[in-house]
């Protein structure tokens, strides 16, 4: 092939060389109206963005406002795009990058079901105590623990439970809030 003949068989430019992906937590304040979550999720799927974690709930009943907390990964350019694209949606009031502000607290809640007898059962209970997990359901052969904390703490707890008879985990996804006296 001659070098001057386009090597690509597409008429679109080739993908730019990849930058390093970073993870950001975004707080998105939206009108609590039907379809608003679909708009946000549709934007992520339609434009090929990642969702690592997503939580949503109404936060101000009187103003009909909901807070969506989404954890996403991408190159810095993509993260910037995500924020601008979210901001463009009509029911979106504000988009705050909790990672960029650097002063945010992130928490997650998990319920962890563990089944076992004898030493495993005792060990599970001891570890739960060390992790400040509460027992919220118990039978003679199982516990359900409730644990709150940063995601990596929950990851750690779950991985410790695995050899002790982990049955299943239900996690809420990450909620985030800024430190200090000011609201978003």
């Amino acid at each position, binding site marked *: 092939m*001659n070098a*001057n*003949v*386009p*090597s*690509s*068989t*597409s*008429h*679109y*430019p*080739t993908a*730019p*060389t990849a930058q390093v992906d970073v993870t950001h937590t975004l707080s998105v*304040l*939206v*009108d609590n109206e*039907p*379809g608003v979550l*679909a*708009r946000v999720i*549709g*934007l992520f799927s*339609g434009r090929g963005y990642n969702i690592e974690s997503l939580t949503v709930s109404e936060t101000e009943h009187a103003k009909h406002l909901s807070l969506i907390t989404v954890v996403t990964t991408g190159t810095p*350019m993509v993260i*910037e*795009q995500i924020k*601008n*694209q979210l*901001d*463009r*949606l*009509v*029911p*979106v*009031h*504000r988009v705050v990058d909790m990672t960029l502000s650097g002063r945010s607290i992130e928490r997650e809640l998990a319920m962890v079901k563990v089944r076992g007898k004898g030493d495993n059962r005792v060990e599970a209970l001891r570890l739960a105590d060390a992790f400040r997990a509460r027992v919220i359901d118990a039978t003679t052969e199982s516990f359900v623990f409730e644990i709150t904390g940063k995601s990596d703490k929950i990851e750690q707890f779950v991985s410790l439970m695995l050899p002790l008879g982990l049955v299943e985990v239900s996690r809420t996804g990450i909620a985030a809030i800024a430190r200090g006296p000011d609201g978003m």
Partner: protein
Amino acid sequence: MTREMTGAEMVIQAMADQGVKHLFGYPGGAVLPIYDAIFAQTEVKHILVRHEQGAVHAAEGYARSTGKVGCVLVTSGPGATNAVTGLTDALCDSIPLVCITGQVPTHLIGNDAFQECDTVGITRPCTKHNYLVKRIEDLPRILHEAFHIASSGRPGPVVIDIPKDIQFAKGIYSKPKEFPHTGYKPKLKGDIEAIKAAIELMTHAKRPLFYTGGGVINSGKHASALLGELVKLTGFPITSTLMGLGAFPAADPQWMGMLGMHGTLEANMAMHDCDVMVCIGARFDDRITGRIDAFSPGSKKIHVDIDASSINKNVKVDIPIVGDCAHVLEDMVRLWRTQAKQPDKKALGDWWKQIGKWRDRKSLAYRNSNEVIKPQYAIQRLYEATKDKDVYITTEVGQHQMWAAQFFHFQEPNRWMTSGGLGTMGYGLPASVGVQLAHPKSLVIDIAGEASVQMTMQELSTAVQYRLPIKIFILNNGYMGMVRQWQELLHGNRYSESYSEALPDFVKLAEAMHAVGIRCEKPGDLDHAIKEMIDIDRPVLFDCVVDQKENCFPMIPSGKAHNEMILGDSGVNLDGAITEEGKMLV
């Protein structure tokens, strides 16, 4: 006015209150109450199209040629899904539309009812915003809010899905004074510090240029006037995207022609070699940039856009300015006038000399023929015959569209309607219907290809019904020309399915549809035939039979940079020719 009326009456009343004169639509079960409301009044005139896609394109043509919001009314299910192509087209090209869709009654939603579809779900990614109206109390606000959202900020299509029971329901109608959406506040004024920094950068530029786009046109005629003023004040060269043609007069010596994949050599080379790029209302689309990592490597870039998500999307810029083009241009003109310092005259002179050298290559040149009509020649003759008239041009999509952009020259904004972002074949004919309605005394021409025009050809009946004397100028080369061109470039001349087999006799077809058909096959007959077409005060289907093998040049091939254009020096045969020395500028 405040009074009790049905939901259907509210729809028409709100349109009347918004100053809507024409509504493009197609009736069906789920919108019959609204059609009944149309029947009872004369303020809003309904235009019956032949397919819902045509209704949306017609509304787009109407909107683009007037700057007003285009209005569409379609039924549920297939009515809504047929409108999706047009809505996506309007979203890509930032055209303000309000589209009312009928929906099955509220209690049947989700029940797989007859002609039910999830309209808000389907249209969510292809509209700026959409609504499903579930309470009659919300309808007056939503109707007016839709017009506000469609026309403000970066314009776009808005869908309002209205269940049939809501159309029958009675409620109190009044025009709201303000909209509670606190999340939606388009930023019009640009950051003045950023604008000052931009002016500073422009003042010290040695090889500057303006690269402008459809945003200038969307910002209104005032923005185009301000752009012209700034370009004159600075003395910089200017190029524009396909969408921005007409914002700056093509007759002006500072105009370099369109840039991008089929742009002129001088525009693309200047983009590549400039040291300061002033991008106003354009979005660094892949048809413009070519290879991203080789895009204008030595320049500082200023980007003015009303949509923050357009900034740094494809190309990293140095001075982003989020704001409306007219507002920012106004500040730029004022700052430029009041500053003492002037740009380096000598450097600018050298820059213009360089541009002159590129111009001398005459990148749009083609080898004309006495035997067959060259498509470029046809557009040139059409331009010569109509340039002194009050003319509006629409196009379909393909080679003819690029030739029209290259050889038809626009001196004013809102005269050029083409599907840029989505590239919708079949756009031009229905768009010309909308344009002609908005400008009944003007000459409206759809420059078409024989393949594109067949996609929405039924709208010729609409033109006949409403006595709209649109002219459909078909460059008939018997191929989906742009597809064939790419097959020559990339797929070894294997013309897979790109030959227009079994074409209709366009003259007879026009006559069967009560329009006028003209065929022209010889270059010598062309001028006379074009004059005949213009003089007929009825819709004309003009079958201009052109050279089958002609390709569209110049061209930036895939994966190449602006300074790697292929020049189509007269009569080039692509088969092997693009590898020849001299066809390629490196």
